[in-house]
């Protein structure tokens, strides 16, 4: 039973039925719109929460407490052989000089226990810091100067108010005696809260107050450099070959499927492969940015190839026809017309791949870049670590100050990423032909 006559619906019937369907269509559209907006709102909400959380936790990590001490730079004690070199200074008693000025500032405490507590006040890296100061300012040797030293991480945590005085002495990490010393120095105006130079210029350290990201940052840059130098030309060349030159046969098809599959392979697998090939088979050293970069290049290759192919495919065929029709060879057509037009897309894909590589931890753990390396790598053959691995390691440490340092390092990593993405957008806009 239908109302449809052999001649079809009359216009009146049809418009009635359309009117009926329109309400439900509009409702569906409104629902879809609402769900879409809800999804965006939820995503934005989480993003804001994430950023607020990280900034809130991380901003204090950019600062730390310093104590200013008047140090008498006694040439005889610091540079016994009077050569002013790194080697000769290594024999100097920097810790002793700092200790003396610390005792002096605290009114010369008596007894071993009191002195030991006093020594816990400043960072164990202070001697190193003073040595660097002397090397930089040899003219001050022999005079008394005011130098800032980082306070120990427990003292720092206390100064931040994270260790309460109310807690019984037995249960807190710093003694009443130490708190008295801190109060005394604070009363003299010697304690200050400043931007942490250790965070930016220090390297990996077990002492939270001295830990910095410099080594990891340099390691990240070197690793990415290796990665881009290998992955970009290889990826673009592969994409050009597959899109423009490869015969359409079974073999090409298999290669294409495998490249697409590689994009979905968990990154840790690339790490195992790097371990097996570069370290075990080729005998390359562990922990070096060269191996890390190669592994990350292999990991980012599929991303670059896939996005480059899409960009190349998006170049209108009429441009190829025009170039070929005028007598340009295949390579000329590609180099002069196709690649320049595809470049914005290729660069975007590459930078997205690089950003992925920058944030990658798992494959680098496999090739030993998780090692504790204090020195800043001076080349791609020098052992080093990278930012995300550094964050991973810091997050593992028990000291409370590492929480802030970890968050600060995350902020630096994010800044790095945002800078890269901004560069991608800038390059895209600059290269994109708007005609």
């Amino acid at each position: 039973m239908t109302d449809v006559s052999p001649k079809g619906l009359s216009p009146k019937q049809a418009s009635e039925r359309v009117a009926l369907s329109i309400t439900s269509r509009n409702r569906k559209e409104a629902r879809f719109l609402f769900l879409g907006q809800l999804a965006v709102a939820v995503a934005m909400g989480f993003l804001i929460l994430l950023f607020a959380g990280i900034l809130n936790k991380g901003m204090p990590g950019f600062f730390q407490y310093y104590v200013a001490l008047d140090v008498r730079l006694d040439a005889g004690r610091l540079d016994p052989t009077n050569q002013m070199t790194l080697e000769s200074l290594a024999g100097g008693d920097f810790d002793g000089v700092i200790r003396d000025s610390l005792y002096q500032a605290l009114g010369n405490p008596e007894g071993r226990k009191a002195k030991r507590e006093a020594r816990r006040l400043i960072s164990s890296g202070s001697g190193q810091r003073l040595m660097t100061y002397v090397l930089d300012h040899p003219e001050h040797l022999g005079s008394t100067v005011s130098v800032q030293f980082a306070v120990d991480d427990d003292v720092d945590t206390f100064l931040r108010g994270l260790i309460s005085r109310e807690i019984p002495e037995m249960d807190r990490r710093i003694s009443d005696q130490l708190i008295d010393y801190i109060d005394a120095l604070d009363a003299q105006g010697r304690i200050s809260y400043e931007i942490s130079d250790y965070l930016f210029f220090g390297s990996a350290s077990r002492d939270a107050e001295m830990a910095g990201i410099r080594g990891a940052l340099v390691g990240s840059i070197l690793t990415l450099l290796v990665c881009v130098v290998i992955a970009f030309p290889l990826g673009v060349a592969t994409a050009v070959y597959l899109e423009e030159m490869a015969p359409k046969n079974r073999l090409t098809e298999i290669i294409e499927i495998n490249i697409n599959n590689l994009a979905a392979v968990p990154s840790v697998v690339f790490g195992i492969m790097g371990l097996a090939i570069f370290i075990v088979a080729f005998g390359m050293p562990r922990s070096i940015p060269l191996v890390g970069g190669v592994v990350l290049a292999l990991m980012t290759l599929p991303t670059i190839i896939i996005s480059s192919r899409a960009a190349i495919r998006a170049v209108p065929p009429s441009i190829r026809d025009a170039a070929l029709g005028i007598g340009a060879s295949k390579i000329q057509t590609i180099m002069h017309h196709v690649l320049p037009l595809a470049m914005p897309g290729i660069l975007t894909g590459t930078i997205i791949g690089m950003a992925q590589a920058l944030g990658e931890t798992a494959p680098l753990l496999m090739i030993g870049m998780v090692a504790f390396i204090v020195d800043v790598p001076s080349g791609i053959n020098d052992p080093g670590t990278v930012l995300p691995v550094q964050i991973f390691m810091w997050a593992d440490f028990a000291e409370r100050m590492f929480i802030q340092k970890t968050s600060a390092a995350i902020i630096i990593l994010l800044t790095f990423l945002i800078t890269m993405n901004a560069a991608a957008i800038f390059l895209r806009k600059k290269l994109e032909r708007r005609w």
Partner: protein
Amino acid sequence: MSESMVDGTTQVAGRTLPDKTLGQIYVDNPRVKARDVNVFYGDKRAIDNISLDIGASQVISFIGPSGCGKSTFLRCLNRMNDTIDICRVEGEIKIDDQNIYDPLVDVVSLRARVGMVFQKANPFPKSIFDNIAYGPTIHGLATSKVELEQIVESSLQRAGLWEEVKDRLDQPGTGLSGGQQQRLCIARAIAVSPEVILMDEPCSALDPIATAKVEELIHELREQYTIVIVTHSMQQAARVSDRTAYFHLGKLIEVGDTKQVFTNPNHELTQDYITGRFG
């Protein structure tokens, strides 16, 4: 359109296809000589045994319904079909007595001799100057910058575009109007001084005024070049060409002087097509 085999002959639209091309295939002073050309897309035969001479200093137009193979045949003449993987060309096409499908022939130098203008104007996304200069540059036609500028100017002059663009040569070619873009593409083709110019429906996307300009241009270029034009417009074929070839289902049905083909066609299919009974 129904197609059936009746008594061994192919019937199309109630008409019988001829066994061989009617009219004058051969001309006195040929520049292009095509003999027994067959083109296949995979297993499908797109061009069925076509032989045709194209005279020097002559305009020939290819007409016929969509899918009749006229564009395919045109693209054989500068081997643009090479870019299609499944396309296979058999037979012989000689330009100035050289078989262009000879393995020894370099397709790059062939295309420098046989220029092409496409259906949709396709200027490079570069400046007007660079659009014209590209061909001469890659073929090394200009020995100095001054020469290159001269080539660009004369090409634009001959394409009738110089007066319109001489003050904005550094501006993108894609910013021109549709008709200007098509004339830019013609200028780009003649900048490499080809012998033959192939035009694949050059006016299909243009308005009547722009079309008139392009046709005028074809008139002027006929002195110097052999021009092959594929068109869907009967009037255009009648206006611009010396000879007309009618294609149908991959076959060359008939070819002859334009006047004769339009006034007194040899075959009923041609008659049907030019009188607008189908197509």
